[in-house]
C-alpha cells in the first residue's frame, strides 16, 4: 500500500475548485479504482462517469496531470506520486458536475454527417465481397470507442470553441470510415470542406497522441480527407482530368 494525494476538481457549471484527497492504493490499481475508494469513503457524491472499466466503452475520460486520458486505463504505477496528481474534467466540454461533462454536442455533430449508403449487393444471396486489405483501412477507424479525448485535446475546440464550424477529430475519423468504406457510394467531400471545417485542422497531431485506441487519426484519417478535398477544390489539374474521365457510378 502506498499513498497519493489527488487534486480533484469539484464543482458544477456555477464554478468550482480543486480539493485535495489522500488515498491509499495497491499495486496494479488504476486511477479510477482510487477515485472509487475516495467516492465510497470520503466523498459519496463525487460525480464520475464510468462504465466498463476495461478501456472499451470510453466513458471515464478526464485530464490527469493535464493529459487527456481514460481513468480506467491509467495505472497508478505510471504516475509520479511524490507530488499531487491533478484530475480535472475535460476542458472542451461544458461541466455538469465534478468530473462529468456534457458531451452531447458530439452526438449532434455526428448526425450532420451523411449516413452510410452501400452499393447494391454483389451476390445473389445479398452479400458483398470485400478485400481484407481494404477492410483493414476502415477497421482502424472503427476501433474508435468515442471517448472524445481527441475532441478534448483539439485546440480548435478546446481553446476556440469552434463547435459550429469544425466537427473535430472524432468525427473526421467517422467521416473517413464512411468515405473510405469499400461499399459506400455517398459523397461527403463538399460537406467536409464547407460544413465540417476540415480545413481548421492544423495537423498538430495532439488527437493522435491521446487516442487510447491508438488510431493514427491525423495521418490516416484527416490528411487523406484533406487530400480528397484538395482533389475536389484546389487541384485544377485533377479537375481537368476528371472532366474527361467517364463517370464511375
Amino acid at each position: 500500500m502506498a499513498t497519493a494525494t489527488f487534486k480533484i476538481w469539484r464543482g458544477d457549471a456555477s464554478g468550482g475548485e480543486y480539493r485535495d484527497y489522500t488515498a491509499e492504493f495497491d499495486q496494479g490499481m488504476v486511477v479510477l479504482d482510487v477515485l472509487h475508494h475516495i467516492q465510497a469513503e470520503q466523498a459519496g457524491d463525487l460525480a464520475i462517469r464510468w462504465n466498463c472499466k476495461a478501456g472499451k466503452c470510453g466513458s471515464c475520460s478526464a485530464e490527469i496531470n493535464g493529459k487527456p486520458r481514460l481513468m480506467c486505463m491509467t495505472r497508478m504505477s505510471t504516475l509520479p506520486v511524490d507530488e499531487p496528481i491533478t484530475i480535472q474534467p475535460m476542458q472542451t466540454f461544458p461541466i455538469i458536475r465534478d468530473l462529468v461533462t456534457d458531451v452531447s454536442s458530439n452526438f449532434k455533430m455526428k448526425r450532420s454527417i451523411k449516413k452510410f449508403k452501400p452499393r447494391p449487393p454483389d451476390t445473389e444471396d445479398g452479400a458483398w465481397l470485400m478485400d481484407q486489405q481494404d477492410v483493414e483501412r476502415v477497421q482502424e477507424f472503427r476501433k474508435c470507442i468515442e471517448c472524445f479525448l481527441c475532441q478534448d485535446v483539439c485546440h480548435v475546440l478546446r481553446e476556440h470553441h469552434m463547435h459550429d464550424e469544425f466537427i473535430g477529430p472524432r468525427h473526421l475519423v467517422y467521416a473517413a470510415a464512411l468515405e473510405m468504406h469499400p461499399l459506400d457510394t455517398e459523397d461527403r467531400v463538399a460537406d467536409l470542406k464547407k460544413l465540417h471545417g476540415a480545413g481548421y485542422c492544423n495537423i498538430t497531431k495532439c488527437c493522435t497522441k491521446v487516442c487510447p485506441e491508438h488510431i493514427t487519426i491525423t495521418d490516416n484519417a484527416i490528411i487523406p480527407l484533406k487530400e480528397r478535398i484538395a482533389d475536389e477544390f484546389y487541384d485544377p489539374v485533377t479537375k481537368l482530368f476528371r472532366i474527361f474521365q467517364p463517370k464511375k457510378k
Partner: protein
Amino acid sequence: MPDAEVRVSLPQRHFGETARTDLWWLQPLVVFLGLSGFIVYSTWAAFQGAHYTYQGYLSPFYSPEIFGNSRHSWFGPWPLWWPGWLPYSPAFLILWAPGGFRLTCYYYRGAYYKSFWAAPLSCTVGKPFKKYRGEAKLPLILQNVHRYFLYLALLFLVFLSIDVYHAMWFETPEGVVQFGIGVGTIVLLINVILLGGYTFGCHSLRHLIGGKKDCVSKSFGGGKPYDCVSCLNRKHMLFAWMSLFWVGFTDFYVRMCSMGVFTDWRII
C-alpha cells in the same frame, strides 16, 4: 441548484498555462532550434554563390545549376540581363522548390505551427491568441499546393540522382576524367536516399498513388505501391529530419572540400 441551462466549461487557460507536469516545452524547443538552425545555415549557404562544387560533386542547394560557372551548369554563365540587385547565386533559382515542398509538408506544418506559431505550443497548453483561421482560409489555405511541390520534388530526385552519377567521375591533375568513388560520392548518395525516403513517404503521394481509392487493393499495382508509400509515411517525421540534416551536411561537405578545409578521401 444552478440554472440547468447554463453550460460552461472550465476557465480558459492563459498562454503557456497547463496542468501538465512533464517537459512539454522540450519538443517544440528542439524543433524550433533545429528548423531555425537549418534556415540560418541554408540561407547563408545560398547567399555564398561560391564553393558549391568540388570535383564531380555539386551541393544539393545548387542543383540543378541553371546558370553558373561550374561544369554542372545547364546554360553556362550568368546571363547579362540578370538584374544587378538580385544575388548571383544559382541556389536562388531553385531552392524555392524543395523549400516549398518542406514548407507545405504535412509533417512540417504541424511542427512549425507548434514551435513557431504556438498554435498550440504543445497539447493542452494555453494559446497566446483568441482568433483562429486554421487552414480553412487565406493565407494558410494555400498549403493545399503541396501536391504540386511534390511533383517538383520528385523531379529534383532525378536531378540529384544524376548528380550522384556525376560524383563518380574525377579529374586527375593531368586532366583525365576517370571513374571513382570518394567519401563525397557516398555523402551525395545518402542524400538522395534520405530525400527519397522523405519524398516517397509524402502524404500527397500516398493519396495520389492509391489512397484516393476506396478500394486500395484495386488501385495502381494492386495496392503494393500504396503499401510502400504508407510504410515510409509512418516514418515521415524521421525521414524529414534525417534528410534535412543530411542535405545541409552535404552542402557543408562539398563546401569544405571546395575550400580545402576537408580532404575528400577516395575509396576507389
